[in-house]
Structure formats: C-alpha cells, structure tokens
C-alpha cells in the first residue's frame, strides 16, 4: 500500500511545483515553459511506476516504466534494426517519393485550371479517407518487405501534400503577380522568384502533417504482413507473446522517431520561412 500512498505524494508534489512555477514571477520565461511539461511528464512516470509496483499489476497488463527502460536498454540492436526497417526504409523513402511527386503534381494542377477544378475536389475528398486501408492491397502487390510500406506511405502523404502545395502556390497576391507582369517576367521566373517562396509556409505545413502520416502508414502496413523485422511486426508479435515491455519499448522508439522527424522538418521550416509572421513571433 505504501507505494500507492507514495504515488499520491508524487502527484501532490508535481502539482505543487507546477502551481508555484505557473503563478511565480518567471511564469512566461522559456525555462518554465520547458520545465513545467517536464515535471508533469516525470510526475506521470513516477505515479505509473509506484502504482504498478504498489498494486502489483501483472506485466501482461501494464509494465512499470523501469521494466520498460531495462527492456529498451537490453534490446537496442533489435530496436535499431526495426527502426531502420520501418522508419528509414519504409517511412522515409515513401515520404520523399510521396511528397516529391505531390509537389510536381501541384505545379501541374496550378498551371492548368482544368486540372485544379477537377483534381482538387477529388484530392480533398481522398485526403479525408482512411487510406491506411489500402495497406493489404499494396502489401499484396509490392511484397512483404519495405517497398510495400513505402507505397502505403506514398499514397497516404500524396493528397495532403498536394492540397497544401496547391493552396500555397495560389497564395501570392494579385498585386505581387501584377508586379511580375510589369517586369514582363516569364512563367518560370515568376514561379521561382514569387510563387514558390510565397508557398513555402503552406508546403511546410503539408510536410509536417505528412511526417506523422508517414510513420502511421509504415507501422500499420506491417500489421498486414512483413518480414521478421520492423516496428509494426515487433509490436504485433510481442503483443501476441504478451511481452508488453517490448511493445512499450517500440512505442518509445516510435515516439522519439515521430518527434525527431517532425522537429527536423520544423527546424528546416524555421530556416526557410524566417520571414513569415508566424515565425517572426
């Protein structure tokens, strides 16, 4: 029972700390904005650990954070192999192909009004569909290895990226277009010097949405068939063997990969669109 009381104590302590921080004189500083969520996260982990130990929750229902950490440290080679298979080979290659082809398509859609009228409603429609359901078909076509996962990712990121890029390429104002007209600029001059830079905030929005979709696609597609490596494979087999500590370790990897991927794209965005009001702050 004592650990459970301890859990309540940890909760009270965390709450008290954050209340102090929030009402203190430094509430708006970067430090507090960083510390408060960290304290909250540590509090949750502390409570989790103590409750699982105190109530002796069986491993097959919820492993304690310490158990997960040990499993993580012990299985680094496996986790790394899964990471390479799913994130680098599956998600990343699909992300690059999908976003790249959507970008090229967006240029065509922007150039020909008929395509915009016809393709954009279809694109908007498809972007809301549960595209991850195409996974069994693509696994059948491209085999169990990462190619089929990359294909799922391509289909998943294509339409959100297309819709965002097209919206971005139309972002330049009528006045800015007229200015290009007065210089007698060619289509490609006006594209490279005006419309493409003006579209960057939208393009990066699409790229950021797509990072999460890429990971979802690559992991879920492995539930429909995979070689004996990969994060989705590891999760589904470990669930079957009731070794939930391994499942949680994979989820930690997925969380780290997801935030790192998103954070990386967001950092490039900051460098490229430093001029946009949302980045100037």
């Amino acid at each position, binding site marked *: 029972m004592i650990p459970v009381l301890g859990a309540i104590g940890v909760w009270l302590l965390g709450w008290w700390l954050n209340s102090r921080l929030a009402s203190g004189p430094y509430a708006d500083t970067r430090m507090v904005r960083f510390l408060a969520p960290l304290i909250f996260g540590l509090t949750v982990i502390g409570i989790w650990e103590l409750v699982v130990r105190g109530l002796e929750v069986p491993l097959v229902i919820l492993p304690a954070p310490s158990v997960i950490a040990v499993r993580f440290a012990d299985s680094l080679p496996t986790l790394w192999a899964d990471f390479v298979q799913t994130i680098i080979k599956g998600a990343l290659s699909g992300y690059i192909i999908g976003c790249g082809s959507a970008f090229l398509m967006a240029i065509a859609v922007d150039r020909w009004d008929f395509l915009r009228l016809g393709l954009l409603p279809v694109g908007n429609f498809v972007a809301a569909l549960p595209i991850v359901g195409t996974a069994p078909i693509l696994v059948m076509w491209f085999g169990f290895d990462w190619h089929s996962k990359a294909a799922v990712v391509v289909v998943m990121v294509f339409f959100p990226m297309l819709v965002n890029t097209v919206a971005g390429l139309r972002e330049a104002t009528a*006045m800015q277009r007229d*200015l290009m007209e007065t210089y007698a600029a060619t289509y490609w001059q006006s594209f490279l010097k005006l419309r493409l830079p003006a579209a960057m905030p939208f393009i990066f929005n699409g790229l950021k949405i797509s990072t999460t979709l890429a990971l979802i696609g690559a992991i879920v597609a492995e539930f429909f068939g995979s070689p004996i490596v990969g994060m989705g494979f590891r999760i589904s087999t470990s669930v079957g063997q009731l070794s939930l500590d391994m499942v949680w370790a994979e989820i930690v990897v997925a969380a780290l990969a997801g935030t790192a991927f998103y954070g990386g794209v967001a950092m490039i965005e900051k460098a490229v669109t430093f*001029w946009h009001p949302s980045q*100037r702050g």
Partner: protein
Amino acid sequence: MNTESTTPPVIEARHLDLTFQTNDGPIHALKDVNLTIDKGDFVSFIGPSGCGKTTFLRCIAALETPTGGALTVNGMTPDEARRNRAYGYVFQAAGLYPWRTIAKNIKLPLEIMGYSGSEQNERVKNVLELVDLEGFGGKFPWQLSGGMQQRASIARALAFDADILLMDEPFGALDEIVRDHLNEQLLALWARTEKTIGFVTHSIPEAVYLSTKIVVMSPRPGRITDVIESPLPKERPLDIRDTPEFIEVAHRVREGLRAGHADDE
C-alpha cells in the same frame, strides 16, 4: 500624332474604351478617353473611386486590355512597351517580398531582366541613395516603417532605368506627415531623373502640388471631365501650397470633381 510638340508623345490615348463583363452585368470602366502625355510630364489622375483612374493606369501598363480605341506607349502598343520594360510601376502597397532583403528586393527586376551581378550592385547602390535609404539594403522589409517600405518600392521601380514611372496611389496608406515628406522627395527625384510620371491619387493638394498636368475623372462611365495644365513653377517648396496660384488650381480641380459628380446624381 500631336503636331504641336517637336518630340512624339510618350503616352497617347484616342477614344479609349474598356468594358468589364461582371456577374452584375457590363461595367463601363473607361469611356472615350483622350489624353496625350509628353516626355517629362508629371500627370496626376484624380477622381472618386470607380472613375477609372487606376484602370487607365493599368491599361498603360498592359495589365488591362482596352476593349476599344487606341493607346500607344513610346509609340508602341502597351504590351510591346511592357515587354521592352518601358515603365516602372509602384502599387498602393509596397509589396516587397518579405523573404528578400531591401537590396535583394530592388535586385528582383534586375535579375528578371538579366543584368550582370556587378551592374545589379551598382544600380542598387544608386537607387538606394536616390530614395534616401543608404545603409538599409541589408534589412528585411518587415524591419522598416511603412514610409521606408514605400520608398524602397519606388527604388525598385527606378532600378532599371525605364523612362516612365506609373504610380497607383503610392502614398495612400501613409499618414499626412510622412506623405508630405515623400511628396517633396518625389519632386526632387523627378527633377533629377526627368522621368515621365503618371500618378493616381485621391488627394487634391497632392495632385496640385506634384503635377504639371492634372486629369480630373468621374465615374459611371469612367471618363475624363477636365485636364488642367498647372501654371506652378517646376521648383516647388512645400509652402507653395499657401500661394494664391496653388489655391486657384486646387479650386479648379474641386470644381471639376463636383461637376463630374453632379451629372451623376
């Protein structure tokens, strides 16, 4: 062709018509517009909104296509003139690209027109001096005040040596004090560069202070109701606005505007 002047006119409009087809039916934006602008003229277009002053300027710039009549710029069609980079255009808003520094913004037309790198730097330096923005070339537009941004956009229009400058209410969004200052600078610049300037404005004092020729327009249909040749000297300090001559010209403009308004009601 105008037989009185020795050089051919820079801009000449004969029976110019422009009708827009809109959802609410056709709109007669310009009707039977006749106007001659000579080299070195400073011509203001003034009138209430909808009188076609901006539309006429856009026709000269080949941003709109007239539906009737004839219009020549430097003896060519407006579109040919545009392709020959015959004019610089200044919009109501500065419209500088936020992702380029001031210097890079001024280089934009030069890049498009294929000037060499050293030539670009040379010209940027010259026009920044011309609009009193030395030392600001490395700043981004959003780090500058509205008046400075508008000066940068004028520099951008001057950078490629077109002899026509078309300005569409360039100071409309600025406050009175900044505006006075910029008007003074614009006159000095005009005297130094001897460009032909077309200038759209809402303000009677601004039009009278700046122009050698004031074109008064009225709406529905957009047309010219009066063309006033200014008797004011070329040298114009700000306090010229208190002289009887100035007030006389302003009075005539106001009369012209009222006349155009009266037959509309």
